[in-house]
Protein backbone atom coordinates (compact mmCIF):
# COMPACT_ATOMS: atom_id res chain seq x y z
CA UNK A 1 0.00 0.00 0.00
CA UNK A 2 3.05 2.25 0.37
CA UNK A 3 3.75 2.03 -3.36
CA UNK A 4 3.56 5.44 -5.14
CA UNK A 5 0.82 6.40 -7.59
CA UNK A 6 1.49 6.48 -11.31
CA UNK A 7 0.82 9.64 -13.29
CA UNK A 8 -1.67 7.86 -15.58
CA UNK A 9 -3.39 5.34 -13.32
CA UNK A 10 -3.15 7.01 -9.94
CA UNK A 11 -3.53 4.61 -7.02
CA UNK A 12 -5.36 2.01 -9.13
CA UNK A 13 -1.93 0.66 -10.09
CA UNK A 14 -2.00 -1.07 -6.68
CA UNK A 15 -4.66 -3.43 -8.02
CA UNK A 16 -1.88 -4.85 -10.21
CA UNK A 17 -0.28 -6.47 -7.15
CA UNK A 18 -3.22 -8.84 -6.78
CA UNK A 19 -4.58 -8.93 -10.31
CA UNK A 20 -1.37 -10.05 -12.05
CA UNK A 21 -0.38 -12.85 -9.61
CA UNK A 22 -4.00 -14.09 -9.48
CA UNK A 23 -4.23 -14.18 -13.29
CA UNK A 24 -0.87 -15.94 -13.57
CA UNK A 25 -1.94 -18.55 -11.06
CA UNK A 26 -5.34 -18.98 -12.73
CA UNK A 27 -3.61 -19.94 -15.99
CA UNK A 28 -0.72 -21.90 -14.46
CA UNK A 29 -3.07 -23.90 -12.23
CA UNK A 30 -5.04 -24.93 -15.29
CA UNK A 31 -1.79 -25.95 -17.00
CA UNK A 32 -0.87 -27.99 -13.92
CA UNK A 33 -4.28 -29.69 -13.99
CA UNK A 34 -3.85 -30.50 -17.67
CA UNK A 35 -0.40 -32.04 -17.12
CA UNK A 36 -1.70 -34.04 -14.14
CA UNK A 37 -4.69 -35.20 -16.20
CA UNK A 38 -2.46 -36.34 -19.08
CA UNK A 39 -0.21 -38.23 -16.68
CA UNK A 40 -3.29 -39.75 -15.06
CA UNK A 41 -4.80 -40.82 -18.37
CA UNK A 42 -1.56 -42.31 -19.69
CA UNK A 43 -0.05 -43.84 -16.56
CA UNK A 44 -3.39 -44.57 -14.78
CA UNK A 45 -1.95 -42.95 -11.68
CA UNK A 46 -4.75 -42.08 -9.21
CA UNK A 47 -2.74 -39.44 -7.38
CA UNK A 48 -2.33 -37.46 -10.62
CA UNK A 49 -6.11 -37.25 -11.00
CA UNK A 50 -6.46 -36.30 -7.35
CA UNK A 51 -3.85 -33.53 -7.65
CA UNK A 52 -5.80 -32.11 -10.61
CA UNK A 53 -9.02 -32.36 -8.61
CA UNK A 54 -7.36 -30.67 -5.61
CA UNK A 55 -6.02 -27.84 -7.77
CA UNK A 56 -9.36 -27.01 -9.43
CA UNK A 57 -11.04 -25.02 -6.61
CA UNK A 58 -7.82 -23.08 -6.03
CA UNK A 59 -7.53 -22.25 -9.73
CA UNK A 60 -11.20 -21.28 -9.87
CA UNK A 61 -10.78 -18.97 -6.87
CA UNK A 62 -7.75 -17.27 -8.43
CA UNK A 63 -9.61 -16.91 -11.74
CA UNK A 64 -12.51 -15.28 -9.90
CA UNK A 65 -10.08 -12.92 -8.16
CA UNK A 66 -8.49 -12.04 -11.51
CA UNK A 67 -11.90 -11.40 -13.09
CA UNK A 68 -13.21 -9.27 -10.21
CA UNK A 69 -10.04 -7.22 -9.73
CA UNK A 70 -9.77 -6.82 -13.50
CA UNK A 71 -13.33 -5.49 -13.70
CA UNK A 72 -12.76 -3.13 -10.76
CA UNK A 73 -9.51 -1.91 -12.36
CA UNK A 74 -11.13 -1.63 -15.79
CA UNK A 75 -13.96 0.63 -14.67
CA UNK A 76 -11.82 3.71 -13.81
CA UNK A 77 -9.13 3.02 -16.46
CA UNK A 78 -11.12 1.81 -19.47
CA UNK A 79 -14.47 3.31 -18.50
CA UNK A 80 -16.17 -0.06 -18.40
CA UNK A 81 -16.38 -3.04 -16.06
CA UNK A 82 -16.28 -5.56 -18.88
CA UNK A 83 -15.62 -5.85 -22.61
CA UNK A 84 -15.75 -8.96 -24.79
CA UNK A 85 -12.03 -8.67 -25.37
CA UNK A 86 -10.18 -11.84 -26.42
CA UNK A 87 -8.22 -12.22 -23.19
CA UNK A 88 -11.13 -11.41 -20.88
CA UNK A 89 -13.45 -13.76 -22.74
CA UNK A 90 -10.87 -16.57 -22.71
CA UNK A 91 -10.40 -16.18 -18.95
CA UNK A 92 -14.18 -16.20 -18.42
CA UNK A 93 -14.55 -19.41 -20.45
CA UNK A 94 -11.61 -20.92 -18.55
CA UNK A 95 -13.48 -20.09 -15.33
CA UNK A 96 -16.52 -21.97 -16.67
CA UNK A 97 -14.27 -24.93 -17.46
CA UNK A 98 -13.05 -24.90 -13.86
CA UNK A 99 -16.67 -24.96 -12.68
CA UNK A 100 -17.62 -27.67 -15.18
CA UNK A 101 -14.63 -29.79 -14.17
CA UNK A 102 -15.56 -29.60 -10.48
CA UNK A 103 -19.26 -30.21 -11.24
CA UNK A 104 -18.39 -33.33 -13.22
CA UNK A 105 -16.30 -34.75 -10.40
CA UNK A 106 -19.23 -34.17 -8.02
CA UNK A 107 -21.87 -35.53 -10.39
CA UNK A 108 -20.35 -38.98 -10.91
CA UNK A 109 -20.27 -41.39 -7.97
CA UNK A 110 -17.86 -43.87 -9.49
CA UNK A 111 -14.34 -42.41 -9.00
CA UNK A 112 -12.72 -44.24 -11.93
CA UNK A 113 -15.30 -42.90 -14.35
CA UNK A 114 -15.30 -39.41 -12.80
CA UNK A 115 -11.54 -39.05 -13.04
CA UNK A 116 -11.39 -40.08 -16.70
CA UNK A 117 -14.28 -37.88 -17.86
CA UNK A 118 -13.17 -34.85 -15.88
CA UNK A 119 -9.62 -35.26 -17.23
CA UNK A 120 -10.99 -35.16 -20.78
CA UNK A 121 -13.01 -32.02 -19.96
CA UNK A 122 -9.87 -30.47 -18.48
CA UNK A 123 -7.89 -31.20 -21.65
CA UNK A 124 -10.61 -29.70 -23.86
CA UNK A 125 -10.38 -26.48 -21.84
CA UNK A 126 -6.61 -26.17 -22.28
CA UNK A 127 -7.15 -24.08 -25.40
CA UNK A 128 -8.76 -21.35 -23.28
CA UNK A 129 -5.91 -21.40 -20.75
CA UNK A 130 -3.54 -21.01 -23.71
CA UNK A 131 -5.64 -18.17 -25.16
CA UNK A 132 -5.84 -16.50 -21.74
CA UNK A 133 -2.07 -16.28 -21.82
CA UNK A 134 -1.40 -15.48 -25.49
CA UNK A 135 -4.56 -13.73 -26.77
CA UNK A 136 -2.93 -10.31 -26.37
CA UNK A 137 -0.15 -11.41 -28.73
CA UNK A 138 -2.49 -12.88 -31.34
CA UNK A 139 -4.99 -10.02 -31.56
CA UNK A 140 -4.95 -6.27 -30.92
CA UNK A 141 -7.22 -6.21 -27.90
CA UNK A 142 -8.15 -3.66 -25.26
CA UNK A 143 -6.24 -5.56 -22.60
CA UNK A 144 -2.61 -4.50 -22.50
CA UNK A 145 0.25 -6.84 -23.31
CA UNK A 146 2.36 -8.60 -20.70
CA UNK A 147 3.95 -6.31 -18.13
CA UNK A 148 6.49 -9.00 -17.27
CA UNK A 149 8.00 -10.63 -20.31
CA UNK A 150 11.34 -12.29 -20.86
CA UNK A 151 11.24 -11.63 -24.62
CA UNK A 152 10.43 -7.92 -24.48
CA UNK A 153 12.74 -7.04 -21.58
CA UNK A 154 11.90 -4.76 -18.67
CA UNK A 155 8.67 -2.83 -19.25
CA UNK A 156 7.90 -1.83 -15.69
CA UNK A 157 9.92 0.29 -13.29
CA UNK A 158 11.60 -1.36 -10.29
CA UNK A 159 9.40 0.71 -7.94
CA UNK A 160 6.48 -1.43 -9.09
CA UNK A 161 8.32 -4.54 -10.29
CA UNK A 162 9.84 -5.50 -6.93
CA UNK A 163 6.58 -5.35 -4.92
CA UNK A 164 4.92 -7.24 -7.77
CA UNK A 165 7.54 -10.01 -7.54
CA UNK A 166 7.04 -10.09 -3.77
CA UNK A 167 3.26 -10.49 -4.20
CA UNK A 168 3.79 -13.20 -6.81
CA UNK A 169 6.02 -15.14 -4.42
CA UNK A 170 3.39 -14.78 -1.69
CA UNK A 171 0.58 -15.96 -4.00
CA UNK A 172 2.63 -18.95 -5.19
CA UNK A 173 3.51 -19.99 -1.63
CA UNK A 174 -0.17 -19.72 -0.67
CA UNK A 175 -1.08 -21.81 -3.71
CA UNK A 176 1.50 -24.52 -2.90
CA UNK A 177 0.34 -24.71 0.75
CA UNK A 178 -3.32 -25.01 -0.29
CA UNK A 179 -2.55 -27.55 -2.99
CA UNK A 180 -0.63 -29.78 -0.57
CA UNK A 181 -3.45 -29.66 2.00
CA UNK A 182 -6.16 -30.28 -0.62
CA UNK A 183 -4.22 -33.13 -2.25
CA UNK A 184 -3.82 -34.78 1.14
CA UNK A 185 -7.56 -34.30 1.73
CA UNK A 186 -8.42 -35.99 -1.57
CA UNK A 187 -6.06 -38.90 -0.89
CA UNK A 188 -7.62 -39.39 2.55
CA UNK A 189 -11.13 -39.30 1.11
CA UNK A 190 -10.22 -41.81 -1.59
CA UNK A 191 -8.67 -44.12 1.00
CA UNK A 192 -11.71 -43.84 3.28
CA UNK A 193 -13.96 -44.59 0.29
CA UNK A 194 -11.86 -47.66 -0.61
CA UNK A 195 -12.00 -48.95 2.98
CA UNK A 196 -15.77 -48.44 3.07
CA UNK A 197 -16.20 -50.41 -0.15
CA UNK A 198 -14.05 -53.23 1.17
CA UNK A 199 -16.23 -53.48 4.28
CA UNK A 200 -19.51 -53.45 2.33
CA UNK A 201 -19.10 -55.57 -0.80
CA UNK A 202 -21.53 -54.69 -3.59
Amino acid at each position, binding site marked *: *MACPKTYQQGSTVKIMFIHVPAAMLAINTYALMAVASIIGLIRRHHVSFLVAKAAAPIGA*AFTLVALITGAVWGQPMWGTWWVWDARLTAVLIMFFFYLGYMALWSAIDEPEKAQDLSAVVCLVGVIFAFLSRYAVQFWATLHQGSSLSIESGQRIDDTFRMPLYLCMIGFYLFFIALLLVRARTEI*RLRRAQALRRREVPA
Partner: protein
Amino acid sequence: MSFNDPYAVYVLSSYGATALILGWLLFATLGANTRARRALEEEE
Protein backbone atom coordinates in the same frame (compact mmCIF):
# COMPACT_ATOMS: atom_id res chain seq x y z
CA MET B 1 -3.42 6.33 -0.25
CA SER B 2 -5.90 8.61 1.48
CA PHE B 3 -9.67 8.41 1.54
CA ASN B 4 -9.76 11.64 -0.53
CA ASP B 5 -8.23 9.64 -3.33
CA PRO B 6 -10.93 9.22 -6.04
CA TYR B 7 -9.68 5.69 -6.72
CA ALA B 8 -9.58 4.56 -3.08
CA VAL B 9 -12.91 2.75 -3.35
CA TYR B 10 -11.67 0.72 -6.35
CA VAL B 11 -8.39 -0.27 -4.70
CA LEU B 12 -9.97 -1.12 -1.35
CA SER B 13 -12.83 -3.08 -2.91
CA SER B 14 -10.33 -5.10 -4.98
CA TYR B 15 -8.29 -5.97 -1.92
CA GLY B 16 -11.45 -6.66 0.10
CA ALA B 17 -12.92 -9.01 -2.51
CA THR B 18 -9.59 -10.84 -2.81
CA ALA B 19 -9.32 -11.24 0.96
CA LEU B 20 -12.89 -12.60 1.10
CA ILE B 21 -12.40 -15.13 -1.71
CA LEU B 22 -9.00 -16.35 -0.56
CA GLY B 23 -10.11 -16.37 3.08
CA TRP B 24 -13.12 -18.49 2.17
CA LEU B 25 -10.86 -20.81 0.14
CA LEU B 26 -8.50 -21.26 3.09
CA PHE B 27 -11.40 -21.84 5.49
CA ALA B 28 -13.04 -24.38 3.15
CA THR B 29 -9.73 -26.17 2.56
CA LEU B 30 -8.94 -26.56 6.25
CA GLY B 31 -12.53 -27.64 6.99
CA ALA B 32 -12.52 -30.27 4.25
CA ASN B 33 -9.17 -31.56 5.45
CA THR B 34 -10.45 -31.95 9.01
CA ARG B 35 -13.57 -33.79 7.80
CA ALA B 36 -11.49 -36.10 5.59
CA ARG B 37 -9.14 -36.92 8.45
CA ARG B 38 -12.09 -37.80 10.70
CA ALA B 39 -13.72 -39.90 7.96
CA LEU B 40 -10.51 -41.87 7.45
CA GLU B 41 -10.02 -42.37 11.19
CA GLU B 42 -13.56 -43.75 11.47
CA GLU B 43 -12.98 -46.20 8.63
CA GLU B 44 -9.63 -47.34 10.00
